[in-house]
């Protein structure tokens, strides 16, 4: 259903401009001051050089950009994309039904269910990871209970599990908001016209919740891509993702210019993804 903005002879265009200003300016000002300026500051380092012992030498250079084109980094990006994509897919497969069920609960239970989804994340990250290690390790709980000797830790699959765990709520909550909005009459109409449950889902529900799906996927994919703690703690440090790469450049090597360049490349891709999301959202 497309939204139509009709000209309203009664209200002046000036009132509309005022409303636009009122709604948009607080948020936008905040973003300009606290996002764009700090980002501008960091990204400006991309054209400078690392000092001998860290710090910045303010001489203009483009060498950071040529360094980007390196099979080592492309390989890391590749495996990060693979892991993040797998995580996102799993999150969607589990998250959509979960959000769907919650959206259809009686009102009293809706809030409780939503809180239940985020409550685990009101504990501390480190002990959650330790808990996973306890579950998955050789002498850990799963192996002890089942009497097996599965090697579940320090593998790529472990990293996916850890990422899925951390970001599942970021899939469920936007989906919940999107699904809950649906007019049940649409679905009943579809059913009355003879469509099966699955067809209704495919042709009515899914398209209408697509913006929520895209948002949820974005919120799971991107942080998974940039995460550095999970690959270190649950992956045994044996795989390195883009997040580790950026972190190492800024913190260990103290090469802020190159770290900024890597970030710029990442942000460029991000903006692309965000524009796709915007297109999907506005299409509905």
């Amino acid at each position, binding site marked *: 259903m497309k939204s139509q903005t009709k000209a309203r002879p009664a209200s002046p265009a000036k009132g509309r401009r005022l409303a636009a200003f009122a709604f948009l300016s607080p948020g936008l000002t905040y973003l300009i001051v606290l996002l764009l300026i700090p980002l501008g500051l960091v990204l400006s380092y991309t054209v400078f050089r*690392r000092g001998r*012992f860290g*710090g910045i030498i303010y001489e203009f250079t483009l060498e950071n950009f040529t360094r980007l084109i390196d099979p*080592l980094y492309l*390989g890391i990006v590749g495996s990060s994309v693979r892991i993040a994509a797998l995580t996102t897919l799993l999150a969607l497969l589990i998250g959509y039904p979960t959000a769907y069920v919650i959206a259809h609960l009686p009102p009293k239970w809706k809030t409780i269910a939503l809180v239940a989804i985020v409550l685990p994340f009101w504990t501390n990250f480190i002990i959650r990871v330790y808990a996973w290690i306890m579950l998955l390790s050789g002498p850990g709980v799963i192996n002890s209970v089942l009497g097996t000797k599965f*090697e579940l830790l320090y593998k790529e699959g472990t990293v996916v599990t850890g990422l899925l765990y951390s970001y599942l709520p970021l899939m469920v909550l936007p989906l919940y908001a999107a699904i809950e909005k649906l007019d049940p009459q649409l679905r009943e109409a579809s059913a009355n016209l003879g469509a099966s449950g699955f067809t209704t889902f495919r042709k009515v529900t899914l398209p209408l919740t697509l913006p929520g799906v895209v948002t949820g996927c974005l919120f799971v994919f991107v942080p998974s891509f940039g995460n550095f703690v999970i690959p270190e703690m649950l*992956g045994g440090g044996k*795989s390195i993702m883009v997040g580790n790469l950026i972190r190492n450049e800024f*913190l260990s090597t103290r090469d802020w210019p190159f770290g900024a360049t890597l970030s710029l490349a990442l942000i460029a891709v991000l903006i692309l993804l965000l524009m796709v999301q915007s297109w999907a959202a506005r299409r509905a």
Partner: protein
Amino acid sequence: MFRTRFTRRLPAAVAVAGLALAVAACGGGSTGASGSSAEPTAKAAELNANADLSKQSLAVTVWDGYTPKELPEKAKAALKISDLKITIHDTNETAMTKLTAGGDSGLDVAFVSGQYAQALNEQGLLEPIHPELIPNLSNLYPEATQLSYDKGNKYSVPYTWGTTGICYRSDLVKAEPKSWNDLLKPPAWAEKKVTMMTTERWLALPALKALGYSVNTDKDEEIAKAKELLVAQKPHLLGYDDTTFGDKLKSGEALMVEAWDGWCPTTDPKQNIKFVVPSEGSDLWVDTMVILKSSKNKEAAHALINYILSPDIHSWAAANINYKVPNKAAMDQVKVPEGSLLGIKPAELLNGESIRDLGEGSTKFGRLSTEVRATQ
């Protein structure tokens, strides 16, 4: 609509603003260069030995639990300074980021490892140590004044020191490890039960030493050979771990791990964990105290360091967290339990090579670490 006109100009306007600010930032107080735009800092000769400390307060950044919990109260009482605030950092790297971000970090004293102190000094961020304000420097072992990253303790004062080696389960290993190769090429019974450290200099250490190279080499061929060793090791490794290897040993997940001596729980009541410095040699790591040039409380900072070097305070680290301190007066006060690593003598420690910051060469180790960890 004014929206579209506005938004088209917006990104450009902001990019310009950002660049302008960056230029202003480097004009004013450049990141990593000396000279904050605050008051002029006292020159080396001008610190006032009789300064009124009650007008000074201190902000210190240190690892959590590395200093006694009562230090702030005790120091305030003993030195009569107006306040002592402890800020905690989890790694050298994050502390460094705060200290080098430009301007005044608001910190007076920082606890960082030796090569990081060296890097800070090279960037002009440290106040030279004024020995006349720290009489307790005489408590240090003579060996502790000859550390290669800062000979003569010109800008740093050592707080704890030790070495890196192999920490292992004496009850579960089939043969006691003696060489770095026992980690690098683990025997069959230790397959996937060994770990290495993640920090790039310590990751490279076993390989460099096993090949007979210096830990401070920046020769490409040597680093490349070290990388080959590490890449070959990877399939036999349990993982890379800087923080939980002690737990892995205790649970039996790992049998041998690369560890700093202070972290190796040899005094565990079950008596089954031992530490060895491999035959090829190792490093000498030192955690130091430094004073920031941007500090407005330099006299108080010196007084604090002097206070920490007093035997009663300094011995706390050895007595409570099992770290050796380079302070003869303090160590003499400590009762060293049987088999404890606190018994390693300074002369032995000095066999280790101090890790130094390699300037441009540092990036080679960053790359080594990335390549090894990225290998599938």
